[in-house]
């Protein structure tokens, strides 16, 4: 497991450099995570983090309203699907079209020690965040030593 953790609170200047450096360092998937069948290069782009409670999966979905996103779990598989609408107005002449529109779906396989039944999702400013807690039995536990 990675030993690096972004500090809290992050300094606005050095924090951005720190975050960018760490994301860059991990861009080649050095942890060799087995994510299943849908890979890099598909929309939406995805980052995976861990925190003290479990995993945090984050996807960039600019222009997709939360009600157009569907998240489904089956076994260890998490699937995010939805639709991104083309920009209007009708009948306008298009000068530039760099933003792709249409339907999307991505799936990943998560490790066994996560409890997908307790996953929670939120979408803010075009970023979808899915938090998946560890199973209770997978959490570190402190064992008190009693005097004999």
């Amino acid at each position: 497991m990675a030993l690096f953790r972004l500090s809290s609170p992050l300094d606005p200047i050095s924090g951005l450099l720190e975050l960018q450096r760490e994301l860059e360092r991990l861009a080649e998937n050095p942890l060799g995570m087995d994510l299943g069948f849908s890979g890099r290069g598909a929309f939406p782009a995805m980052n995976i983090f861990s925190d003290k409670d479990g995993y945090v999966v984050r996807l960039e979905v600019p222009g997709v309203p939360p009600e157009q996103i569907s998240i489904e779990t089956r076994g260890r598989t998490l699937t995010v699907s939805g639709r991104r609408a083309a920009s209007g107005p009708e009948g306008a002449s298009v000068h530039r079209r760099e933003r792709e529109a249409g339907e999307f779906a991505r799936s990943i396989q998560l490790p066994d020690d996560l409890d997908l039944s307790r996953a929670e999702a939120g979408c803010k400013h075009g970023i979808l965040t899915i938090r998946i807690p560890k199973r209770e039995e997978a959490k570190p536990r402190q064992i008190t030593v009693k005097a004999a």
Partner: protein
Amino acid sequence: MTPQELSVKAKQELSGGEHTRPGRTYVPDVDISETPDSLWLWADMPGVDEHSVEVKLDEGVLAIEGRVSLKEYEGLTPLYTEYNVGNYARRFSLSADIDAERIKARMANGVLELELPKTARAKPRKIPISAG
């Protein structure tokens, strides 16, 4: 039928030394359309809220800039990454005369929408032809 898979382009870093903020700055993907009355622009800036975006029009050059918040990343350990996080900036030379006073900007779901109304002078005008 499986839906057509949308692809994602790697974010392009802004080149040139014109940004004053530290760290990497990315070029947002945009759509630009034109109607008889206005130019319309949409820019993908995921992670940017309505208080962290700036739009400037100066001598026919439109500049947009968005700053991301780092708050959501505190206490996280990256495990797998496909995209990097950074501020956004892009500039455009506008082909039409725009009425700067009436520009409308809106941020929704990480997309900046701009309506840039043309000045009366720049609007297409039909010239009636009278029978001679």
